[in-house]
């Protein structure tokens, strides 16, 4: 809490924090608490809830009690499977973003300051267009009768459409495209602060190019890499536009599952809320493990 300005604000801390607390409270904490409460209520058949405590939502998520609910409970794999698929889809998208995003960020950060801002602007340009429209455009681009396939067939490289649409690959492509800038920007910020004299010092101390990357550059820019991975992984895990529009039924992900529960009359609000809470728990666990490991590294 240091800094010369702290004296001016002394004693006004609570007042100054009020707007932030109001916004975080009403738009973050309150909705999460509502979800938590809803997940323990009984479902109303046309959507909505009956205010009656019930564990049915969680029970439905984890256990299969047969069609009429009278058989002995078996572990239900459907939803766990969807979660598992979502986690590895999101993980894969994160790795793809990292592999492309790191060199991109490195490239931008090592340009001269003037062209850096141009490159950064180019990276953020797609964000001026709504995510839904971008995802639909992607669908038009890669579908069997889209420009990509038509160009490749016209030029004789392929004789049949690639069949990209409705595959895991298409979902990957959509997630990658949607979240790449979230990887590029934090890594860019870290690389921009990187002191290249460190690379020279390492070279001077008998380290070759790859050793410098592994032992000096990556550890020093690690905070940026981790921030980027979190910023890509978390929204990818809950994404529903890319899997819905590009993936079709085979690539159903958590986001779509939750979305369906709140849409139309077929929904099940408590179940959607329960799935959300389970997703939230997984994400929080990942972040906690990360924070724990960071603290250990610092204390050493």
């Amino acid at each position: 809490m240091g800094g010369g300005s702290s004296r001016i604000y002394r004693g006004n801390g609570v007042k100054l924090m009020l707007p932030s607390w109001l916004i975080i409270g009403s738009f973050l904490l309150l909705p999460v608490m509502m979800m938590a409460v809803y997940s323990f209520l009984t479902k109303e058949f046309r959507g909505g809830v009956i205010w009656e405590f019930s564990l049915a939502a969680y029970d439905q998520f984890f256990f299969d009690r047969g069609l009429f609910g009278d058989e002995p409970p078996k572990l239900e794999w459907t939803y766990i499977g969807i979660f598992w698929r979502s986690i590895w889809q999101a993980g894969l998208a994160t790795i793809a973003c990292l592999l492309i995003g790191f060199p991109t960020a490195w490239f931008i950060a090592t340009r001269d300051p003037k062209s850096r801002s141009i490159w950064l602007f180019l990276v953020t340009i797609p964000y001026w267009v709504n995510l839904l429209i971008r995802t639909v455009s992607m669908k038009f681009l890669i579908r069997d009768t889209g420009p990509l396939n038509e160009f490749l067939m016209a030029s004789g490289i392929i004789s049949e459409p690639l069949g990209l649409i409705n595959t895991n690959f298409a979902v990957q492509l959509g997630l990658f495209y949607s979240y790449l800038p979230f990887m590029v920007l934090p890594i860019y910020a870290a690389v921009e602060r990187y002191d290249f004299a460190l690379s020279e010092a390492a070279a001077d101390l008998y380290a070759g190019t790859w050793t410098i990357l592994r032992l000096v550059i990556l550890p020093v820019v690690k905070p940026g890499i981790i921030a980027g991975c979190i910023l890509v992984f978390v929204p990818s895990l809950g994404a529903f536009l890319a899997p819905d529009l590009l993936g079709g039924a085979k690539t159903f992900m958590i986001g779509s599952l939750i979305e369906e529960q709140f849409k139309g009359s077929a929904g099940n609000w408590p179940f959607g809320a329960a799935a959300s809470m389970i997703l939230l728990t997984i994400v929080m666990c990942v972040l906690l493990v990360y924070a724990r490991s960071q603290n250990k590294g610092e204390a050493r």
Partner: protein
Amino acid sequence: MTSFDIAVAVEKVIKRYGSVTALHGVSLDIRENEFFTLLGPSGCGKTTLLRAIAGFEDVSEGRILLKGQDLTGLPPHKRPVNTVFQQYALFPHMTVTENVLFGLLRKGWSRQDAVRRAQDVLALVQLSDFANRKPTQMSGGQQQRVALARALAPRPEVLLLDEPLSALDLKLRQAVRLELKALQRETGIAFIFVTHDQEEALTMSDRIAVMSNGHVQQVGSPKEIYEAPTNRFVADFIGETNLLDVTVQSISDGVATVLLPGDKPFTCPAAAVLDAGSGHLSVRPERISLCAEPLAHLSATVTGHTYLGTDIQLHVRLVDGEAMTVRLQNAESTVVPATGAHIGLNLEAGAARLLAD
């Protein structure tokens, strides 16, 4: 002349950046076990030369030999020299020990030997108690010693130092000068030290190369550089000097007779073979004494004085209008002539030198 073992031989090195030439055919021999300083103003090429020895810059022409081995084309990590960087460039994510171990392990030392060596080197720079700290938790002076330890640990053939004292405050800088010099004696390897600070260069070096505009102007011991500068640039850059326009009457065997302003003849050493005509006489301000006007070499009018603590700087104007400064020691008996007074200036024997341009 005694022969020395040469640690680094710089042979006619030219370095161009596009249309700009940073080094114009520099040749230098740096001896084993000497404290060698590259001294010059910023942009003179001293850092470029150091970086060329380290391998961070390729030379456009010429070559650099390390103990007879041609270094041309060898990347930095294959050259057995280590560098102390200007801002130290310590690895922020590693402890002091890990920083020092870095070069040893890359060089293929076993962990056990490397750890022992790191302990020895840290003891040498008096940092044993800080072995497990991170560099960010240390003061500038301590970081500088870590950088030294890290560079010395792998036993380089030559240690390169790129203005390592410039980030320290004055008091610390003065103390570290002596430590560095002692460390050089202790390790017995050549130190090549880059600085723009002439006082640093004079106090630490065995030999100094004064550089400007990509040329070596003069190489010599601090005493030679200070007392027998070969040209105007060196005389002007090292210490304070008065440069007088004089008429050269005769010159032979390094001794010249010149006509001082006011037309008194004066005999002094000459730095280079010059033709008779006009030349520059360099006179150190502390080698001038005041005396009665009729006997003096020069007549002058006092225009003012500046109080410097240990010294008093007297500003005078000669008969031909040239300005000069004279340093008077601030002793109890010193009488400072009043502004406007006419005084005589006596040049001590050997106080003045005739210089080339």
